[in-house]
């Protein structure tokens, strides 16, 4: 009689522990969901149109619109190209205006490879390039763009799989040029700021995952495709999310050092492209 009662008591405690564990887990999860919600709420309130939006400038933040390799919505605009747009662009440009003498237009310009205006923007930004794809014609146009003096900054793609997709697209543009690691002494890291110490800049997902890195992209890779004179044509920022840093630099929870590095890298890339 006593043995049955003991068994019954042991079974009840296990159930209680499980329930308690479950409760705690859900609580933690709910707490996380609340933090991500903070950022998602902000995404619903994009950056306002600046008062001088109509004023042209010498430099324009040109964002490349491309066809995503996989279907699916990510961010506003209906494609991976639009990640962080337009807040990242406008907030970054504010920094460019404040930190340099570059006469930057306050609003961004979305450009497409098939458009005539594409060649009017010698500096372009392409994000989530782990999803990009080109037709042969678009690839040829991009190749011509670089060889004539155009510059591209790529950002926000992580890990082995996304690299393979990026590289596949890149091969269409430059099948015969290698991707190299940018050396520390390269002028692109010293043209305005000395960026000797660089680190991985994470996106807001880190508040959800608890990790700065995404997928298996554990280490920040600073890579490039060079022209015949050793100048950077494509600056490849792999395993980092500089766009998020620009976008959330004004958020109190976003790490200041991440935002600072992201701004300095972006500014260096602009100055470099306007001097080389």
């Amino acid at each position: 009689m006593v043995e049955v009662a003991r068994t019954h008591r042991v079974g009840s405690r296990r159930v209680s522990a499980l329930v308690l564990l479950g409760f705690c887990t859900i609580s933690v999860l709910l707490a996380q969901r609340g933090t991500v919600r903070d950022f998602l709420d902000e995404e619903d309130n994009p950056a306002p149109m600046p008062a001088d939006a109509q004023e042209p400038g010498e430099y324009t933040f040109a964002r490349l619109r491309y066809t995503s390799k996989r279907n699916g919505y990510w961010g506003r605009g209906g494609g991976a190209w639009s990640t962080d747009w337009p807040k990242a662009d406008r907030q970054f440009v504010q920094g460019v205006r404040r930190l340099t003498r570059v006469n930057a237009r306050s609003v961004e310009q979305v450009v497409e490879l098939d458009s005539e205006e594409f060649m009017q923007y010698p500096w372009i930004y392409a994000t989530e390039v782990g999803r990009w794809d080109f037709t042969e014609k678009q690839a040829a146009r991009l190749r011509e763009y670089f060889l004539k003096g155009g510059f591209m900054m790529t950002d926000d793609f992580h890990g082995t799989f996304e690299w393979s997709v990026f590289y596949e697209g890149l091969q269409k543009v430059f099948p015969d040029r290698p991707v190299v690691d940018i050396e520390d002494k390269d002028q692109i890291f010293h043209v305005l700021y000395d960026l000797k110490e660089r680190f991985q800049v994470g996106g807001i997902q880190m508040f959800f995952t608890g990790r700065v890195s995404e997928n298996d992209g554990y280490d920040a890779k600073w890579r490039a495709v060079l022209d015949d004179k050793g100048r950077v044509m494509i600056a490849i920022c792999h395993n980092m999310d500089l766009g998020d840093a620009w976008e959330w630099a004004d958020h109190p929870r976003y790490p200041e050092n991440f935002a600072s590095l992201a701004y300095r890298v972006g500014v260096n890339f602009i100055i470099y492209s306007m001097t080389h």
Partner: protein
Amino acid sequence: MFEFLFRYPRSVFTKGDLVLLGSWPVWLLGVLIVAGIVGLGWLMRSRQSEAVGSIKGWRSLVLWALQSSMLAAVLTLLWQPALLVSTLKPQQNVVAVLVDDSQSMALKEGGQARRDQARTPLQAGVLDALSRRFQVRLYRVADRAERIKALDTLTAQAASTNLGDSLKQVSNETAGLPLGGVILVSDGADNSGGVDLDTITELRTRRVPIHTVGVGLEQAVKDVELSDVQAPARALADSRIAAQLTFEQRGYEGRKAKLAVRDGSKVVAMREVTFGKEGNWQTESLLFNAGSAGARAFKFSLDLQEGEENQKNNSTERLVNVQDGRRRILYIEGEPRWEFKFVRRAIEDDKSVKLVTLLRTTQNKFYRQGVDQPTELEQGFPAKVEELFGFHALILGNVELNYFSPTQQELIKSFVDRRGGGLLMLAGRNALSEGGWAKSALAEVLPVILPERKGTFLREPAAVQLTGTAIDSLITRLVEQPGANDERWRKLPQLADYQDIGTPKLGAAVLAEYTPGGRARLPLLVTQNYGRGRTAVLGTSGTWRWQMQQPLEDQTHEVFWQQLQRWLVTETPGPVVASTPRQMLFDESRARLSADVRDKTFLPAADVEVEARVLGPQGLTERIKMKPDAVTPGLYLTDYALPKTGSYLVEFTARRGAEEVGRDVVTLQRQDGVAENFRTGQNRELLEKLSQQTGGRYWKPADLNRLADEIALSEAGITVREARDLWDLPAVFMALIALRGTEWWLRRKWGAV
């Protein structure tokens, strides 16, 4: 006809003095004439009432005038009018006969060489006629006069003609002799540029008339002559050179010919031209690459045409000193711009030019590129003369005036004026008028008058086109053919921006214009020389669109900027600038060499020693100390006689003690037997002037039978005064008949007879 009516040649009337040989006093003639006229007048008036009605009034005055003229003429004839002329005493005077013996006299015209055209009439009787009255001295003339015994020794092979020196020599040789006159038989193709005033004055003082006999056609019937080539004396290695070729043709109007330039045997450029109206000078340009460094002799030529009478005047040479070494340009940019990037890329492969850039990236930070030393331009834009003057040209981008201190502003002005550098100012939101340059001291050096207002810079597209002035400009020549070049510019992508750069100054060259939004054309690229340097303003910072919006293989942007940069630096002098008036010496040997020496601040250096080291043909070497000019500080001169034909290189070195101040090189070439091939048409103008200014006369070979008589009418030598009667001239007789006959005819017409 003249001599038939007036019995004597014109020269008797032009040289003679009118006199009355009658023994009665001249005043009596006057009195009688007046009395006769008055008397006739009174007679006519007194018989007016008896006169026929039709000859009253003005008709009677006409008749009175005719009768008065008749009376005056008859009375004058009674006083024996005559001309007093000086004539050479026979056999007591010397007449010098100078015959041109240069190569141009070997030209054949109508199957006969000019030498023979000259010789034949002289040998056919003219010389004999002269010898009967004078002592004749025969000379052959070329670059100097040489006494000869007979005309058979003429060879027509002398390399050049110098009539002035020859006449001077004859005058000196006959200084103690009674020289009655000079006969010069020549085609007038003088290579020394004419007869100098001193020689003419000397002959006029002696009253020696020069009778010139013009030989040869004044113009060839069928000939093409390349008469002049203008090419720069210096060029940078691998740069483009523009040469202006001037030629004339006869008999080939509308035909096509090839203009070519050769470097040795290699044709470096060629293009087809169409001959214009014959007899007109025509100028065409030819662009070619200078090639590698060194002293180069480029040969310019026009195709030989079928049937050309003179085949030796279709080509000529010019020397160009092609220099190596990179010219440094300092480009200061006020903010990062695309134009800055693409200009750097456009000229990075140009081995002759090195761009050193100073870019203001932030308010107080500069990014330096192209510096030779890590410390170069560390303090920003140079504030010291030696530092700035170490550059050959300066480009000011989007930089406001206030960035530069007053000292730096003056330095920039001196950089252009004194140092001789090139200055280019670009457009921008802080440049030109926007940057406060309109009222600066530097406004004086600019080729435009900047607008005194803001809002001149606009980021709007604008189309470009060339102006007519740009036809000959190397800066804007993207395509060889002028017409195609014009079209090429019209098709260029629109500029990214433009700026109103104001009004071009007098003498400035507007090479390109832009059309903003289809409105009126405004100047885009304007250049001008200032002091020893040159300046340019480019009213845009948006040419980079030519690179990004044209096919990859298109080189328009690169070519334009390379040519603009080379224009900025090519003529920028070093501390020593050597020169000579003519690098090619055709049938002459003397060259004036000069060196302009400046110190480090490019002020004239009057305290240096300058030596010229000559390297000539067949191992010739010579060192010459140059003398400072008494008037111009820093200028050193010497005259050098090139002893042989061939190429010469002269290196000038200036030293102050052991320190070398600088050096420069000039190349020369002496060619003999060339000058006579050019301008071979008879220079009648020179021959006529020579005779007119000395009291002689111009003759054609066919008229020489009267030469001996006319040459006797001279005031030089031993002369006698002769009176030539005028009363028995046929013209006088006919005049008297005409007066009388006219009166009778009028009377008859008016019914009085």
